[in-house]
């Protein structure tokens, strides 16, 4: 399949075509990207999930590129923190990139920040609307729940759920509350109670499910993308054929009129 040839005809489908090419050319391990505003605990969460300090947590956005770590069953992607710059060009790139290279998105939001802000909601909506099935591939992770009392966390969660309910594309979003710090402390101090209370296991369990589903999910996505591209291609073919017919008809009509006028002129000249 020549992606470049398809891109030539369907430049508006760039994102879907890149995703299609990506799925075809990559291993069947699920690629899970952690996405969210900078300083909301993305890297800490990732480090807790992979069990080592691979991703660097920084107070300032240090990169605009994704960082990846391939494990036995999963490829983890750390994305640059959103909303770190005044110029949000990089965020647009990150959103587009996330769609093309990730099978699943963990949307990270820290509990201390309270409900989702407008920018986060906008970005989450953009992601969910890229593909009608995409909302099923996104999971909202409320991080750093250890920084607030359980009651306060419950209030934040309730408010966030209310926010999500306002948007049809986000209503089905699964919400998981975790504390990566608590989990890491549990590991460091070998205290399983911290690990249990961190609720990270819920993400491990989710990840396991995603690993199991990935082949079927990709197969389904591949078919859906190809069907969509085929549809666009046929629509483009139809439009081009109609345009060609119209141009040919115009040319023929004009030429016929010219020939008729030539004959009239020839007879009218004395």
């Amino acid at each position, binding site marked *: *399949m*020549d992606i470049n*040839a*398809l891109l*030539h*005809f369907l430049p508006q489908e760039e994102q879907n075509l890149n995703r299609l090419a990506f799925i075809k050319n990559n291993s069947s391990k699920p690629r899970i990207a952690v996405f969210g505003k900078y300083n909301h605990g993305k890297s800490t969460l990732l480090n807790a999930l992979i069990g080592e300090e691979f991703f660097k947590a920084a107070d300032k956005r240090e990169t605009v590129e994704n960082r990846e770590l391939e494990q036995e069953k999963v490829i983890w992607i750390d994305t640059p923190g959103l909303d770190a710059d005044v110029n949000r060009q990089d965020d647009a790139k990150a959103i587009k990139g996330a769609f093309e290279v990730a099978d699943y998105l963990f949307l990270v939001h820290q509990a201390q920040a309270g409900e989702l802000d407008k920018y986060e909601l906008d970005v989450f909506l953009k992601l969910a609307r890229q593909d009608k099935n995409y909302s099923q591939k996104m999971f909202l992770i409320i991080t750093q729940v250890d920084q607030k009392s359980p009651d306060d966390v419950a209030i934040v969660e309730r408010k966030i759920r209310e926010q999500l309910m306002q948007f049809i594309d986000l209503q089905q979003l699964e919400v998981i509350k975790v504390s990566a710090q608590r989990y890491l402390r549990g590991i460091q101090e070998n205290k399983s109670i911290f690990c249990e209370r961190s609720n990270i296991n819920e993400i491990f369990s989710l990840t396991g499910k995603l690993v199991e589903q990935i082949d079927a999910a990709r197969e389904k996505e591949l*078919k859906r993308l*190809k069907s969509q*591209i*085929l549809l666009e*291609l*046929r629509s*483009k*073919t139809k439009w*081009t*054929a109609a*345009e*060609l017919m119209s*141009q*040919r008809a*115009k*040319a023929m009509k*004009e*030429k016929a009129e*010219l*020939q008729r*006028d*030539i*004959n009239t*002129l*020839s007879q*009218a*000249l*004395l």
Partner: protein
Amino acid sequence: MAIPWIVGGIIAAGVAAIVASDDSSSSSSSSARDLERERVRARLDNERKKEAAVKLAKDQRIASENKAKAQRFITKHKLTITPEELLRANKQDNQLSLQAMNNYNNKASVRGRNREIELLEQELEGLDIVEKELLRTL
């Protein structure tokens, strides 16, 4: 003897007068004919001149009408050829049609549309190829 001479003289003079009188009448008649011929010639000349002037005026009117017709045709079809060129071409077999068509085909807008048609044809061919390729891999 003088009388016969006188009589003879008178007779001679009379004959001479008669002869002289005949000569004068003949000269007058010839001059009139010349004048008449001259008048006829002048009239014919005038008529010819008038006819020529009428013909010239008619030719000029026809030329002007033809030019106007050619110009209307040129304007309608936005051609770059001149009316004179078209009228010259009209005097040769099929040349009017040929020249007008050539001029039309060389118009920027016609060339542009022909190019567009060519591109659309190529695009359709390309679309057909990628669609077949996509279906093959589905």
